[in-house]
C-alpha cells in the first residue's frame, strides 16, 4: 500500500473517461475538488458534501460512487467516468441524455450529472430495470426543480428501449 504524508501533495493519476489524467493532491483532498479544481472538469457537481444529494455521483471502476465521499488519492490508478464522458464518440447526446431532454427531466441541471451517472450505472448492470429498480436509484438523489416526473419518464423510456 502506498504511504502518504498528510502534509504533502502527491502525484495522482487515473483514467478519466478513457483518457489518462494526472495532478497533485493532498491526502485530504476530495475527489470532487480534484476533478473540478485540479483537472478543471466541472461537470461533476457538489450539493451537500455529506453523501445525500447525489449531485456528485460518478463511476469508479464501473460502480457508482459519491465523489464527495471519496478522496482523490483513492482514485489513483483507477478508471473514473463522469458526465463529460457520456456523449457518443461523435459528440452527440446518448440515448439517456436525449431522453432527459425530451422529457424535460432537468431544469437548473445541477442535480443532473449525478442522476445521469447513477442511471448509467443502473443500465450498465441491469439493461431492463424494473420500475422499482429505477425508483430505487432515482430515490437516491435530490432534485429541487423537476418533481422527478421527467426523470422517471426518461429512465422508463430508456429501460424500454430494445
Amino acid at each position, binding site marked *: 500500500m502506498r504511504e502518504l504524508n498528510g502534509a504533502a501533495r502527491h502525484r495522482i493519476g487515473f483514467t478519466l473517461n478513457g483518457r489518462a489524467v494526472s495532478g497533485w493532491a493532498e491526502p485530504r483532498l476530495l475527489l470532487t475538488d480534484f476533478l473540478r479544481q485540479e483537472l478543471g472538469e466541472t461537470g461533476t457537481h457538489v450539493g451537500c458534501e455529506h453523501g445525500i444529494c447525489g449531485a456528485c455521483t460518478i463511476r469508479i471502476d464501473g460502480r457508482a460512487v459519491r465523489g464527495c465521499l471519496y478522496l482523490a488519492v483513492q482514485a489513483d490508478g483507477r478508471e473514473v467516468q463522469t458526465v463529460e464522458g457520456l456523449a457518443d464518440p461523435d459528440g452527440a447526446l446518448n440515448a439517456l441524455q436525449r431522453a432527459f431532454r425530451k422529457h424535460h427531466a432537468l431544469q437548473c*441541471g445541477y442535480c443532473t450529472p449525478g442522476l445521469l451517472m447513477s442511471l448509467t450505472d443502473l443500465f450498465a448492470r441491469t439493461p431492463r430495470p424494473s420500475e422499482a429498480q429505477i425508483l430505487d436509484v432515482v430515490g437516491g438523489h435530490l432534485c429541487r426543480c423537476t418533481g422527478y*416526473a421527467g426523470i422517471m419518464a426518461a429512465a422508463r423510456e430508456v429501460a424500454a428501449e430494445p
Partner: protein
Amino acid sequence: MCFGLVATPPVRYNRTTPREGREPARIMTEIAARHVGQPTERTEDLRLLRGRGQYADDLAVSPRTVHAAILRSPHAHAEIVSIDAKAALSLPGVIAVVTGEDVQALTDPFLVALRQPLHQWSLAVGRVRYVGEPVALVLADDRYLAEDALDLLSVSYRELPVALDPAEAAQEDAPLVHEAAGTNLVSVRDFSYGDPDGAFAAADRRIALTTRFPRHSYMPIENFVVVAEYHEGDGAWDVLANFQGPYSTHPVMARALRVPGARLRLRTPRDSGGSFGIKLAVFPYIVLMAIAARMAGRPVKWVEDRYEHLLAANSCPERVTTIEAAVRDDGTITALRFDQLEDYGAYLRAPMPGPLYRMHGAMTGAYDIPNLAITSKIVVTNRMPAGLVRGFGGPQLYFALERLIQRVAVELDLDPLDVIRKNLIPAHAFPYRAAAGALYDSGDYAKAIEIATGDGRLDDLIRRRDAARAEGRLYGIGFAAVVEPGMSNMGYLSTLLTTEARERAGPKNGAISLATVNVDPLGAVSVSADCMPQGQGHETVLAQIVADQLGLAPDEIAVNLAHDTGKDPWSIAAGTYSCRFTPGTAVAVHKAARQLRDKLARIASNTLNLRPDDLVFTGARIQARDNPDNAVAFARAAGVAHWAPATLPDGMAPGLRETAAWTPPELAAPTEGDHINTSLTYGFVFDMCGVEVDPITAQVRIDRYVTMHDSGKLLNPLLAEGQVLGAFAQGVGTALHEEFVYDSEGSFLTATFADYLVPTVNEVPRPEILHMESPSPFTPLGAKGAGEGNCLATPACLANAVADALGIADPQLPMTPKRLHALMAARDEPAP
C-alpha cells in the same frame, strides 16, 4: 409532446382586447406564432447534459484569488466580548482575518424598508443575534486551509436571553433582539376595506381559525458562490455571484459599500443551480467578500457549503394568522378579518417584509368578498433572517384562507366545493378589482373548477373515499382555489408605510423590464435581458419569441443571459423572482424584436418597392405577402443597416440593436386608502386530491392529485408543465416534510439533509395537470406568471384532505407522522 395527463384541450377566451391594441399605430406585418406556444425542447439542455454548464463555481478565476471561510455564531443571542485571531493568522497560508470591526469601519449597515434601527452588517458587529450569524472571515490560499484556520479562531461570548417564538417575542417583556428598536414588534399596520365591522355585525355566523405557517426553504442544490475583486485604479468592485435579483438590492449593496452603483459591477453566470427566491440572500455575502477583497488586495472567492446554507442562508418567514369570516347560513362570505404576525428572524433584510405585503391587494383570493380588515404585524426573533422563498407570502395566505373555507363548510355542514363555488368571482366580473386593490386581469374560475372536477375525476375521488371509509380506512378529500400573482408592483412594499410616510418618500410603482435584441452585419441575432434564469428555460422561450417576430428558427437566435450590470440592460425590478419573466422580461424581448422587425420591414420595403405592411417574415426571408418570390434575404436586409447606413429610409438610426423597456400602467402606486394592485397578472389554480392516512404509522399517502391551471397563454407548454411539477413537489415538501427546527435555546437542529427532509421521488407522486387559457389583456403575449401556483395551493389542499380524513380542525404543517399521531391521539381521547 409529453403532456401525458392533459386530459382537456385548452379552452380559449377571447373576450379581452390584447394590449397591443392600445399602443401607438404600428407596422402591421404579418406574424405567425410558429414557435411561441410550442413545447420546444430546451437549448440549455445541450450544454447541461454534457456537463458543460457555466455555473458560478465553474468559471475560471485569477491565479491571485484567495479563498474564504466563515466562522459562524454558535449562540442565538450573545455579546461578542473578544475575537483572538493570532493563532489563525500564524498558520502558513492564511492571509487575513476579517471581523465585525473591519466591516463597521469600511461599510454602512444595510438599508431597511422600515424606519427602525435594525442595523445589519455583513458580519456581526458587537452582538450575534442568531445561530449561524457570520462572525469572522478567514482568507487563505485554499479553502481547506481557510477552514483549518476557523478552528484556531477564538471568540468569547457573553450569552443573552433569546426571543424565539413569534408570539412570545411580540410580548412586551420579551428579550429584545435589537435594543435600539425598543420592541421586537417593529411594525403594526391596520387596513380596512369596505365595511368589515358592519358585515361582521350582520353575519349569521363568524367562523375563525388560527394557522401557523412554518419556517422552511426551497433551497437549491447549488449553494451560494461569490467571487469579488477590487480595482484600486477605478475605486470599483467587480463581483461575480449566483445572485437572482431583485436588483432593488443593488443600491442596498452599493450604499453599504459607500460607492455609487456604477462602481459595483455585478455579474451573474449563464447557469444557476436553482434558486426559488433563495439566491437573493447571497447579497450580504457579496458585500462581505467585496470588503475582504479590498482589504486583501486580491480577488476573494467564497463557496458556501450545505451546512452553512441550511443553518443560515435563508428561510421563509413564519406566519401566525388568525382569520375570521363573516358568513351567511348559505355559505356566502361577506367579510374577512386577518390578523397576521410574521417573524422575520434577526434582521429585516431587503426587500423584507415583502412576503407580508406581496399579496396585500389580493388577500381575498379567488372570492368576491367586498369587506376586509387586515392587521399586519412584523416581529423580529433570534432566528435566521427570512427572505424570498418561492410563493413569497402566497403559501402563508392560502394556508389560512383555504383552511378557513374548509372550516366554514364543516361548521355549516355544507360541501366545501359548494362554499368555494358560492363565493367565486364570477366570470363576467373581469377585469375584477378586489377589495384591497388588486386588478385581476382575466379568468373564469367556475369553468376551471368545472373542467377539473369533470370527466369523472371528482366522482372517482368520492368513490375512492367511500370505499376506503367503508373498510374503516382514513381517507379524505381536499380542495384549494388559488389566485397566482405574477410580476410584482415595485410599489407594493410602500403599503407598509402610512399615507403620510409614503408621500414623504415619493411614489413608487411599476415594474420595469428591459431587454436588448441585436442583429449583426451578417444577420445573426443575439439577445440579452434583465432576468437571471435558474432552470426555467428562459433562453429557449426568448428564442421562440424572437424567432416568431423575425421569421427565423429558434436555434438561429443566440440567447445568453449571463448578466453584467456594467453592460447589460437592467433597472430596479430586474431579476428572476415573483414570476416576472413571462409578464415582464419576455414582453420586453418581444417589444425589442418587434422594433427590429419594424425597422427591417422599412428597409426591405425600400429594396422590394412594397409597403412595409405588405411584407411577411418567414424562412429567413422578408417577402411580399402575395408573391413569395418577391423577397430579400433576412441577412441581406440586416446588412444594409450596417454596411450602407446612407441608404436607410429617412430618420432611421443606423445599426440594428434595439433595447425595449416595458412597464405596465396597471401597476399604480398605493392609493390614499391603501388600495394596491400588487401584481400585474393573476392566474388561477384549482387543486383537488384524495389522501389516506395510515392509522398506525400516521403517514400520509397521496392517492390522487389533480391540479388545474389557468396561466393565460402558455409560451412553452413543456416548460410550463415543468414549473407545475417542480412547484408541486415543493408544495408536498411544505405540507408533509420540510421544517427548520430550533431548540429552546435557539440552536438549529436541521443542518444536514439527513435532518432537513427534501422529498425524493418516493415522496412525490406525479399529479394530473390540466390547463385552460384565459389570455391576460394586460400583456402583449397574453401570458401570466406560472411558476408558483402549487407552492400556494398544494400545502392547503393536502391539509384540507388530511383534516377531512382525520376529522380534525387544526392540521399543522408539516403534517409529519409525529404531529398527526399526536392529533389522532388527542382526537381519540374520551372527553373528560
